[in-house]
């Protein structure tokens, strides 16, 4: 099972390298990782998705907790949280294919943010399914580049993540 760990950390130099180093050292694999400042500039949030199949998620969280700069870890329940990822897709476009691509973009409520003679850049936000969906539909046109932010997540309702 995939887990989304939301890790609240002190916003200090070296914290990210401690986290990534820990994953490497303990043989845990990271699917994606996203970092950013929170509402409190002293704190950052790291959202890590990991596969619980290959590694006991309990060991991962316990080891993370041992890092002095880690304040709180939440293993987000997919039913009570929302997750999003932002992706920029540069796709090959000719005068013949351009309108077809635009149709796909509209179906996915994505945006075209750059146009050149031979390419389009598509911006899409969404869940993993939506993103995989649009990528697979755009692939036949020729993907030039795909850049993803990694997943971020927040818990629903009043509860803090």
């Amino acid at each position, binding site marked *: 099972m995939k887990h989304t760990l939301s890790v609240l950390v002190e916003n200090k130099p070296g914290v990210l*390298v401690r986290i990534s180093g820990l994953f490497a050292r303990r043989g845990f694999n990271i699917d994606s990782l996203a970092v950013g400042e929170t509402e409190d500039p002293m704190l950052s949030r790291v959202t890590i998705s990991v596969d619980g199949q290959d590694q006991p998620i309990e060991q991962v969280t316990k080891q993370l907790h041992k890092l*002095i700069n880690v304040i709180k870890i939440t293993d987000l329940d997919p039913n009570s949280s929302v997750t999003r990822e932002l992706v920029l897709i540069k796709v090959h476009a000719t005068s013949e294919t351009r309108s077809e691509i635009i149709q796909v973009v509209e179906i996915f409520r994505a945006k075209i943010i750059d146009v050149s003679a031979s390419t389009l850049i598509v911006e899409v936000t969404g869940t993993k399914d939506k993103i995989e969906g649009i990528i697979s539909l755009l692939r036949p046109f020729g993907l030039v580049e795909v850049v993803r932010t990694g997943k971020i997540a927040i818990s629903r309702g009043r509860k803090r993540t």
Partner: protein
Amino acid sequence: MKVAAKVMMEIFKNEGVEVVFGVPGGQVMPLYDALMDADLLNVLTRHEQGAVHAADGYARASGKVGVCIATSGPGATNLVTGIANAYMDSVPMVAITGQVRRPVVGTDAFQEADTFGITLPVVKHSYLVTDEHELPRILHEAFYLARTGRPGPVLVDLPGDVATALIDYDPDNPPKLNLPGYKPTVKGHPRQIREAARALAEAQKPMIYAGGGIIISEASDELRELAAYAHIPVTTTLNGKGLFPEDDPLSLGMLGMHGTRYANYAMTNCDLIFAVGVRFDDRATGKVETFAPGAKIIHVDVDPAEIAKNLAVDIPIVGDAKWVLGSLIDELRKLDPSPERHLPWMRQVEDWKQAHPLPLREDPDGEIMPEFVIRKLWEVTKGEAIVTTEVGQNQMWAAQYWLAKHPRRFISSGGLGTMGYGFPAAMGAKLARPDLTVVDIAGDGSFQMTSQELATCVSYNIPVKVAILNNRYLGMVRQWQELFYDKRYASTCIECQPDFVKLAEAYGAQGFRATRPDEVEEVLRIALASDAPALMDFRIKREANVWPMVPAGSAISDMLGGGEA
């Protein structure tokens, strides 16, 4: 405003630092200058590895935080082995390294190394000081982190220009620590403790498996009380030696790869393991799949990540061993378990003990056997000395034959297995406990890795004793080659060695040699009686092996050699 290096001396004082070990260099000159006027002992070692192991030995013998200092670049990298060693064995330590001046950090300046990065996987925590005004808080945090929870080494990397900056510090009003993510659990969960008490009272075949965590937590008395009250046999890990008196009838000595047969048989056949302050290391458990197959496991540790790391646990208890044991004894008294409840088990354990004692071999050629030296050393010191060890056969013989009676008096590199550890660690231990005899039980190979610290011992008159069990081999590796590589002794024969007696004398220490069993006791008596550092070169049977032994990856009940009777 005061110079930061001077402030550091005030902080050392505030934190109770009595001694620091280190080697100076460009980026720590301000610190050394301040040390000249500080009210503490500043020990100059001959190599930074000596400094860090000495700080470690001091910490293990005293329970206080050990402090070592090295300059940037090579000084700092020379500390790395010792920091990793302290990390593996949870030793409280603050390591202070010089760093190049802030404006040139990251430019490959002279003697720049990324000490913070290099040590990241082997520290409990680390700091690179970038703002001089944060230095007091950081240094206080470093000491606090090093000694609390599961202790460990904390590194403070200090650019040279931070040490000379002017800062404010009021020793009566030190800055508040800022560690929002750090809250070690002390009190165990009461329901889990009650459940553990019930399991202990009901078990038919209980065992206590205890380790270094008990010593760190100063919980030996509680553990002794529990074992005596509930009448349960005790086996310990290497780093647990001394938490329970090994001459007590309930003691089964050390378990694992070179443990006693009776400890390993008892662990394999018991129905309940009360594990406390241990981490189910592979040297203790052997093949985990076959470890104690019929046993329910209670595991007490202050570090939640140790629980269920290597093995599933039935009753996990996160908490400080001293606190947990205290309240467990109270719970157990309420249950008032009958002493009769597990008599057949106690008889069985006693039978194993009688049937498989550790061998006390006599050599047909009349050469010195290593266990003879260790037993004589025990007799001469009445088992009251602090023993440190090197790594290899010497370490395992010491573990087997030195019956440790007190906590903090058996000091050995358990997790990392660092050759060269024992001698500098003995120096540190002697400074912590000048009232006790301190002996490094050494191998000739290991001793040569840090023997330069003889100069340190002589110059500060630290009267440490070194007992080399000299087999002119890298003996433990040779033993494995004998058993598993067809006696092909690749790179393990080290016949070219200094005359250790002359080496000791060359440094101004005393040197003695014994080549026959009848010389052993006299050498021990003379060397231990002197108030100078002294080295004893015991020429032992060259190919003596450590028995019994569990081959790597086997069940701990599958032992080779030693007391099969």
